[in-house]
């Protein structure tokens, strides 16, 4: 197997830069799930036809998700020596006019969103410029930095998303990729890396917010024949597609993070556990592992450091509970994905009873950046207790669904108004749910809560994995509680009684309330069951299951009352 040297990395970087700033026309089409749903595949076919018909020489590249879901399908045109232009809502019907404009060397103004003269490469802090000349005819068009959607954002984890060809390792290297790996393996000791990660203040992005450095340290110090690092890509939450999107947009950054983590912890094997049913994400990861192995970033004696590491991609078989660490490990071992009691931590005895460090996709993607730029730089971003940024998938009753990344400390309201474009006309904000099923809902009055692990906990919610659902005044909160309990009932693995029976009973009671046969005693029963589940369930799925019921009962108690006393659903959502 090939051992890479610094010059190989530099060669890859130069080749990648040539691809990103080509001598001929380069057209990028966003092809993540949201774009495909809006017809990106048809756009690519039509582009190919039109380009050949109008005899325009261009390369078409499928890229990942740039995050502006509401403007999909998005097409970016990079003409040599000119700024890169980004067009939105390009349906197959618009392709002909777009190609005509390209052929003439002009601009298709109606659909133009912004121009990119230069871009900051966050891994290196350097600028990558497309043109050195100012273009007078384009002056009126906002630059990417001025574009409203990007202004409040700080795209660290999503640094390459939608900008590079995810199937091309050269383009990843052109944006500073694998330089952190080189630095870590040749210039840093494992202890130094753990020290940097600890000092950066990085906390696990999977939901718990456990300090990553401490987790790594415990795993490094644990005794075991083998050690493993795992990447949790089991995304079973209803309403979140961001890991899928991140994998499809930039698979190499996950690998780079994992290899650095493996070196720091003393592991030689890594596993990526991918949620079932994502064929395109699976293919992107498989390709990335193959490329990284071919170039020697994975394999034996990486960068002549004596360190060897391999990554195996494993597809899960469904199940929300498989996102829970011990259930995930059971599933990786080829068994049914059920959790086990956690009095023995998996960092000491995890996969095949060996010390195992599990982090999620977003956490791993942060690692190369911390190594490249240093913990001092990283820890300046965010709040006192929560450093860095958070990727948020914003959807629900909102004008602009999107995938964004903002510094910790940004308030929920800011995200809704500036990035999501507010609530559709005629409605008002009623509640926000951030963090998926284990998190309680927040009423509109708490919309000023900042994105911060501790602040959100205090408010009765959870940062979770960052799926943010906005609900307007036409949402019935009892119905929402029933919806989440129905989901959790389906997904409960059935191993422990409180969760298996409790969630079912809670769902039944809520069903009663929403169909007009609820009684005043139901509320007491719900309270008691909530307490029982929170205390006695085996894993976090059961423990956190009552959160949604508790929070809706707390903040919207009058809605429960109306359902029970008057057998009326105030917003007429429930069938009564």
């Amino acid at each position: 197997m090939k051992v890479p040297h610094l010059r190989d990395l530099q060669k890859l970087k130069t080749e990648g830069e040539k691809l990103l700033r080509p001598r001929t026309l380069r057209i990028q089409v966003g092809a993540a799930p949201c774009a495909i749903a809006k017809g990106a595949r048809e756009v690519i076919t039509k582009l190919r036809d039109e380009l050949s018909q109008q005899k325009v020489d261009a390369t078409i590249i499928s890229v990942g998700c740039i995050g502006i879901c509401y403007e999909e399908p998005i097409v970016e045109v990079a003409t040599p020596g000119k700024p890169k232009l980004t067009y939105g809502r390009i349906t197959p019907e618009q392709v002909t006019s777009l190609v005509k404009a390209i052929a003439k060397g002009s601009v298709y103004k109606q659909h133009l969103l912004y121009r990119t003269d230069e871009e900051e490469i966050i891994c290196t802090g350097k600028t990558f410029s497309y043109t050195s000349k100012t273009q007078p005819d384009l002056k009126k068009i906002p630059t990417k930095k001025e574009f409203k959607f990007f202004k409040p954002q700080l795209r660290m984890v999503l640094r390459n998303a939608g900008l590079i060809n995810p199937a091309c390792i050269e383009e990843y290297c052109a944006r500073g990729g694998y330089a952190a790996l080189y630095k870590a393996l040749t210039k840093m000791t494992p202890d130094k890396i753990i020290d940097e990660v600890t000092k950066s203040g990085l906390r696990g992005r999977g939901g718990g917010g456990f300090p990553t450095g401490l987790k790594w340290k415990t795993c490094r110090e644990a005794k075991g024949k083998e050690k493993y690092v795992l990447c949790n890509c089991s995304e079973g939450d209803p309403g979140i597609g961001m890991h899928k999107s991140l994998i499809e947009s930039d698979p190499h950054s996950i690998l780079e993070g994992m290899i650095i983590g493996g070196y720091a912890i003393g592991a030689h094997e890594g596993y990526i556990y991918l949620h079932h049913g994502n064929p395109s994400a699976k293919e992107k990861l498989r390709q990335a592992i193959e490329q990284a192995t071919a170039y020697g970033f994975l394999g034996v004696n990486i960068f002549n450091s004596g360190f060897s590491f391999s990554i195996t991609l494993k597809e899960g078989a469904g199940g929300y509970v498989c996102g829970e660490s011990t259930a995930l490990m059971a599933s990786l071992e080829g068994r049914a994905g059920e959790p086990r009691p956690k009095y023995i931590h998996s960092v000491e005895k995890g996969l095949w009873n060996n010390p195992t460090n599990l982090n999620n996709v977003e956490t791993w993607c942060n690692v190369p950046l911390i190594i490249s730029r240093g913990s001092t730089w990283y820890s300046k971003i965010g709040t006192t207790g929560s450093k860095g940024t958070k990727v948020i998938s914003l959807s629900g009753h909102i004008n602009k669904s999107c995938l964004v990344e903002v510094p910790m400390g940004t308030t929920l309201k800011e995200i809704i108004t500036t990035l999501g474009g507010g609530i559709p006309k005629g409605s008002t904000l009623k509640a926000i749910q951030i963090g998926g099923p284990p998190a309680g809902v927040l009423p509109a009055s708490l919309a000023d809560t900042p994105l911060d692990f501790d602040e959100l906990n205090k408010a009765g919610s959870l940062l979770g994995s960052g799926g943010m659902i906005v609900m307007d005044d036409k949402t019935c909160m009892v119905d929402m509680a029933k919806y989440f309990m129905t989901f959790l009932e389906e997904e409960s693995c059935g191993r422990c009684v409180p969760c298996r029976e409790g969630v079912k009973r809670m769902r039944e009671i809520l069903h009663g309330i929403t169909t007009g046969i609820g009684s005043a005693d139901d509320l007491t029963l719900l309270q008691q069951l909530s307490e029982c589940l929170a205390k006695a369930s085996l894993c976090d799925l059961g423990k956190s299951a009552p959160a949604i019921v508790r929070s809706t009962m707390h903040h919207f108690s009058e809605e429960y009352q109306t359902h029970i006393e008057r057998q009326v659903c105030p917003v007429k959502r429930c069938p009564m």
Partner: protein
Amino acid sequence: MDIKTLDEIIERHKTEKGALVSILHDVQKHEGYLPEEVLHHLSDTLHLPLSELARVATYFEQAFSLEPRRNHTIKVCQGTTCYLKYGDQVVTEIRDEARKEGEDTLFNLEVVRCRGCCDSAPVVEIDGNILDRESATRTIIKLKGEKK
């Protein structure tokens, strides 16, 4: 499923630790379901009790099926955003459409959670294509027409 193909699948995962789920994925992909005789053969070859195999195969009901699959798969999304936008009504609508002319033997109807395209909510996925409710209904009518 012939034994040779099955043995090839087992061989492919020989060095993989905890390969059972991966093997079952391959069989499911190849056959469209997990035939009983396959589970028996796997039990003998992998030296695993049949009960353990059945447990894994039925635990992951979203991925594995013990019965042959029908020709087309409809996945109606019930992610939070799709639900907020009355996705539950879409489930009923789609189910009714699929079963309009008596018992439906053409479609596997599944309820899934989030396909990652919430901006288009509520969505329905038919044979891998994401559609809105109107085009989903049209597609079902078209597919039923093709059968006749």
